[in-house]
């Protein structure tokens, strides 16, 4: 016992003598020894080739004049292939799951003499929500993620982070946030998972909280539909296509601007003290391995995210059906709620239907429009083809426009819905993923409520300005 204490106190005294740099010196000697050994046993053959392909590509993709165009063109191509390519399989799946199996299932349950309300909860609620989520979510993800993974595998994405870092450094974030943000355009939950590539704690949390400002796959159709109806409808017909497309792009760009501004704000306030360390490795270029990439991106990203979405869609489908079909007095629960929040919602330029739709369609942004249509039909007493209290979509934009205008929508409502669709809470899949990644209720709460607060404030401001001007 005495001996131990003696040794410990000697050690403590010696610590003052060896000084502070001991850790550095130890590492230095380890490296020295390692390179000595490597020098003895590793033989290197051949000189470096005169033409180095890696360096040539690097010069090209990080060049002052070539870097940005290459980046923008590649991104545009990826998005174009995703949006155009996803339409066709989406149609097939929707035809199969929504148009064919849904009525058949319903008929089956009726013929089995199952009570109508069980039929409603299971088929019109749970099954239909899942069918919708799968048909809208699966094809774009199955196209977008493999393409993204191919670029990553090839080694191009780290160069994008390298090029964008200057911008992100200024707002207190990491260059790799450019990548997680792009991933967020596909799916925010996948974007949040992708923040694992950022190894500095503060920058990772910034990337997680701001990922929701990338307009995800589930929100693009909403934006395009509403822009076509309200923005396109407000200008002369020959301009409609261009103007509504410009409006959608403007919303997406606005999202990027918000993600930068919010990153800056977070790094100056709540995240001021979090530890931070920058490092970025640029791996050598590799020919991508096609099959392996397809397999891993399907399993790791697509199926993983889809599964979580489906798990959340089931209870949400049940809830959606129930609020539309449980009656208190003469009106359904949904109608009571809509009438109750309508004054407040109209005040900030939205309406009660939108509020309720965003609350009950929290599992997936994909089912917001079907829910809005169902609720509008419910409150306006317009008979819907699918039956009362069942989610549906209309075949043409003109029909949808007529339905929404009957529900009291104006151009202002359309603009505000587009903004609110950008600035609202992430879907439940993303919220759950954020919690899994951060293990912190605080950051999950901030990522959930910060965008809602921003959305409400901005819609309110737009509405007040609109009312003053118009």
């Amino acid at each position, binding site marked *: 016992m005495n001996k131990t204490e003696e040794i410990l106190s000697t050690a403590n005294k010696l610590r003052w003598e060896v000084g502070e740099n001991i850790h550095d010196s130890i590492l*230095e000697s380890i*490296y020295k020894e390692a390179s000595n050994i490597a020098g003895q046993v590793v033989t290197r053959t051949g000189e470096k080739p005169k033409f180095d392909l890696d360096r040539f590509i690097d010069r090209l993709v*990080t060049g002052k004049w070539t870097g940005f165009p290459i980046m923008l063109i590649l991104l545009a191509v990826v998005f174009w292939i995703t949006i155009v390519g996803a339409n066709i399989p989406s149609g097939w799946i929707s035809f199969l799951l929504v148009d064919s199996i849904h009525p058949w299932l319903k008929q089956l349950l009726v013929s089995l003499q199952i009570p109508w309300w069980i039929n409603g909860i299971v088929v019109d609620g749970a099954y239909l929500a899942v069918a919708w989520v799968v048909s809208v979510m699966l094809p774009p993800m199955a196209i977008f993620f493999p393409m993204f993974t191919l670029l990553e595998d090839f080694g191009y994405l780290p160069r994008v982070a390298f*090029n964008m870092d200057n911008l992100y450094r200024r707002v207190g974030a990491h260059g790799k946030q450019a990548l997680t943000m792009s991933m967020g355009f596909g799916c925010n939950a996948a974007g949040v998972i992708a923040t694992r590539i950022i190894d500095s704690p503060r920058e990772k949390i910034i990337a997680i909280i701001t990922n929701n400002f990338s307009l995800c796959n589930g929100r693009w159709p909403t934006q395009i539909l509403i822009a076509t109806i309200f923005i396109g409808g407000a200008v002369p017909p020959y301009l409609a296509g261009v103007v509504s497309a410009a409006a959608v792009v403007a919303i997406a760009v606005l999202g990027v601007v918000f993600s930068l501004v919010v990153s800056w704000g977070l790094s100056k306030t709540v995240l001021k003290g979090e530890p931070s360390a920058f490092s*970025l*490795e640029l791996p050598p270029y590799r020919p991508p391995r096609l099959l392996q990439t397809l397999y891993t991106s399907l399993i790791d990203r697509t199926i993983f995210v889809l599964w979580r979405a489906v798990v959340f869609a089931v209870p949400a489908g049940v809830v959606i059906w129930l609020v539309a079909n449980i009656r208190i007095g003469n009106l359904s629960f949904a109608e009571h709620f809509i009438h109750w929040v309508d004054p407040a919602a109209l005040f900030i330029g939205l309406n009660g239907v939108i509020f309720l739709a965003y609350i009950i369609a929290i599992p997936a942004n994909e089912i917001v429009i079907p829910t809005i249509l169902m609720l509008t039909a419910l409150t306006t007493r317009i008979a819907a083809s699918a039956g009362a209290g069942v989610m549906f979509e209309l075949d043409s934009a003109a029909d949808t426009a007529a339905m929404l205008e009957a529900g009291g929508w104006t151009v202002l409502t359309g603009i505000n819905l587009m903004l609110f669709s950008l600035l609202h809470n992430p879907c439940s899949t993303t919220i759950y993923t954020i919690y899994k990644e951060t293990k912190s209720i605080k950051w999950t709460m901030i990522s959930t409520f910060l965008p809602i607060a921003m959305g409400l404030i901005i819609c309110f401001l737009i509405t007040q300005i609109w009312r003053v001007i118009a």
Partner: protein
Amino acid sequence: MSLLFLLIIGIIFFVLLIFILSPEYGLISIIRRMKKEQTRELIEDALKHLYDCEYNRVDCSLSSISGNLSLSKNKTAEVIIKLEAMNLISSGENKISLTSEGRSYALRIVRIHRLLERYLADHTSIQETEWHNIAEAKEHETSEEEARKLAAQLGNPLLDPHGDPIPSESGEIPSRKGIQLNKLENGKFASIIHIEDEPKEVYSQFSALGLYPGMQIYLVENSKEKIRFEADGEECILAPILASNITVVPILEKEQVKESFKKLSSLKQDESAIVVGISKAMRGQQRRRLLDFGVVPGTIVRAQLKSLSGDPTAYDIRGAMIALRKNQSDLIYIKRI
């Protein structure tokens, strides 16, 4: 009409927020200041000041304590009477000194304070100028057990980020070495061992100059008006009164660094150099990350690629391409080959 109304509510809300949160006159800071007048904090702060005086071999009086704690003389006298009653200090005619119990109490607080500063420097990205204030507030709330855990977590550090030794658990601390910067002779090399972190205004000036403990300096001119010296190759000028807050130890002739080192950031594309050292201002996780990449003295680095916006730059380090931001490569010193 309703817009105007809302605007007024908004402004009222904003004013209220300022009233509550303003750093000097806000409600929160007033309450905090009132809390500070509670006895325990006062006693501990007074003991710390007495210890500082003893360590720097200066005499300590009632007025210096009241100045340091920004407390009226009457209040200070009350605190001193209390301290005497607790047998922590003994006061002579003009001199107040610590008893051995008082000294070990003071050392305990000093230890916690310096551990906290070390923690803030290495494990958070809180601004250098705020370390002292945060540690000052938290030192009174930290128990000895917590301090022991913190020390273990930090790997029992020897020095705080200002270069002050951290007392060991049993209260051992090496005696003061070095001289004040304004007493260094012309043409001498020295290395900074301590930068006084109080008062705050002075310290923020040092941190703006980028001075840190462990930095090597070369004194160019020492006159009554100014002290001019080179620190890591850059010229700094300080007033002598400010320079007295910096402690240095002269470097022996044989260890002297004859040339001033260049920074890694000065390397042009395709140029190579040998790393000679990493600045002490590179701390914590960031420093470990660099060491992991193999950035240690003796490593050969080559500037390989500049980002399209000019920052960061990718370096070839031991066969891998690592991108470093300019504010990082500024802290790595190199020698051209």
